[in-house]
């Protein structure tokens, strides 16, 4: 919104103008510069990706890894990226919701603080450490579960056997990602739940709601946009997470089975292949990065659209 400092009808003689104080002016410029800087960086990254990716799009299909052109190369990676992130979300979202509600509405105050601190601490663990934990501890321990899934639910293509003997599968990578995004979603959900106005919670209680009914009537609807933002931030991290996936997953070609080795994500593929790439291979990897960039952008826009759709009911007004 712009406002004019000039009065609509100038009084005759001397034009009057509100005095501009230097502090206001400097601060306004500083914030504007910071805002513009973000846009420049974003545009710079996008321009770099597009410029470096174009050769991969134009190249002779035979030159691309796999020999069938860029899109044949990239779609299994897109699939792997989305599936790994999706598995992570399915596991992490209900868990984060439960932890956040426990901290905000059920736990005694002292315990809630401690628990919140521990969850925040999870976010401070470097992803390479998660990767080590995934390989050394998680993969051997979940192997049996994946074998069970392959034996009993093998008729579903996602669980088709034989299960990986090392346990380093998409499912395992998804579980590691779930643990990694848990603190983000929990922290945001907890904050929005704590901000539910006491007024609305008491309104529900005064109608004779039990604590769970009060949460369903007042807390969850109020926290819904925040929860969606939290989930999308988690999804963003899961989509882009590189190190943990690169370490945990035993990569390979496309397969529907999530319990055998195979598949790869875009970020892990770039990390694993980039050091030894040259020429058109580098362009191909950068083009894959561009695809990841577009996917993440699309996810964020989708999240904003979901949040904005019911804005009138959001409780913000």
């Amino acid at each position, binding site marked *: 919104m712009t406002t004019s400092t000039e009065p609509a009808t100038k009084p005759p003689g001397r034009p009057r103008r509100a005095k501009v104080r230097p502090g206001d002016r400097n601060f306004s410029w500083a914030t504007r510069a910071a805002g513009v800087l973000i846009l420049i960086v974003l545009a710079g990254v996008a321009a770099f990706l597009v410029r470096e990716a174009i050769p991969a799009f134009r190249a002779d299909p035979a030159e691309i890894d796999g020999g069938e052109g860029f899109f044949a190369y990239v779609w299994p990676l897109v699939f792997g990226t989305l599936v790994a992130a999706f598995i992570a979300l399915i596991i992490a979202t209900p868990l984060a919701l439960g932890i956040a509600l426990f901290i905000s509405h059920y736990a005694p*105050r002292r315990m809630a603080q401690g628990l919140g601190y521990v969850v925040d601490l999870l976010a401070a663990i470097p992803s390479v450490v998660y990767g080590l934990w995934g390989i050394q501890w998680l993969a051997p321990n979940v192997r049996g579960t994946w074998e069970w899934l392959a034996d009993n639910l093998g008729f579903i293509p996602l669980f088709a056997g034989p299960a990986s003997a090392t346990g380093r599968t998409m499912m395992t990578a998804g579980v590691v990602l779930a643990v990694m995004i848990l603190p983000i979603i929990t922290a945001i959900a907890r904050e929005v739940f704590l901000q539910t*106005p006491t*007024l*609305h919670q*008491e*309104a*529900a*209680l*005064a*109608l*004779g*709601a*039990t604590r769970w*009914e009060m949460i369903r*009537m*007042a807390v969850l*609807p*109020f926290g*819904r946009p925040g929860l969606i933002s939290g989930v999308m931030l988690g999804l963003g991290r899961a989509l882009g997470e590189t190190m943990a996936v690169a370490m945990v997953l035993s990569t390979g070609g496309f397969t529907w089975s999530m319990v055998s080795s195979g598949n790869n994500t875009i970020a892990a593929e770039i990390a694993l292949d980039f050091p030894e790439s040259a020429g058109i291979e580098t362009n191909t990897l950068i083009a894959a990065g561009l695809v990841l960039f577009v996917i993440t952008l699309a996810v964020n826009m989708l999240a904003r659209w979901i949040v904005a759709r019911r804005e*009138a*009911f*959001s*409780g*913000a*007004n």
Partner: protein
Amino acid sequence: MSKRIDVSDLNVYYGDFLAVEGVTMAVEARSVTAFIGPSGCGKSTFIRTLNRLHEVVPGTRVEGKVLLDGQDLYGPAVDPVVVRRQIGMVFQRPNPFPTMSLRDNVLAGIKLNNSRMRKSEADDVVERSLRGANLWNEAKDRLDTPGSGLSGGQQQRLCIARAIAVEPDVLLMDEPCSALDPISTLAIEDLIAELKENYTIVIVTHNMQQAARVSDRTAFFNIAGTGQPGKLIEMDDTTKIFTNPGEKATEDYVSGRFG
């Protein structure tokens, strides 16, 4: 539908702090009882003990008896959730659920009691409650819009509609007009006069003229000083309290000498 309340020797605590001490009073059915008194004297704290809402704040407790037509609300086998379904409450600031439409706001309490209800039945409840709260004419064409789109006075009447939709025995109002303009206040006061035909109403108010206008009986609360517990000084017919009170403190307060 409406029931009387008898309170005896009620002490209300926040942790170790005694906030209200030794209240004994009788609230008659189908009448309006007003609580007046200076800020911090425990009126709001006390009214919240009548539907057991006080205890939702951690560390609080209540000693004494509150009888609703002879049934002790603080009895060992009594579920506070059931108490709150019998005793409705309207708060100081209008608090319709912002994420619900007008219609869902009115039905919120009903849905807690029995989840299944035919649409025609629900429509009847919505219309009856909104008519009861004098909001039907303003709301009938926008039942699916959010409650937060109404004006403050309309929102407060929506909250009253929500409270009476479940047909409670008693309606508690904690300064229901203090966030409203004079015209909306008048609308609520008229509504209170109508609701008294069917409900037992208890209202906390800072506005002595309001207490004089709407109530049949008035209770005056006072506090000896900061950190001291609030006490019920006297309770009598409203006309008597405002013309010829028994206590000096009451006379000083209603005549505007303090508070």
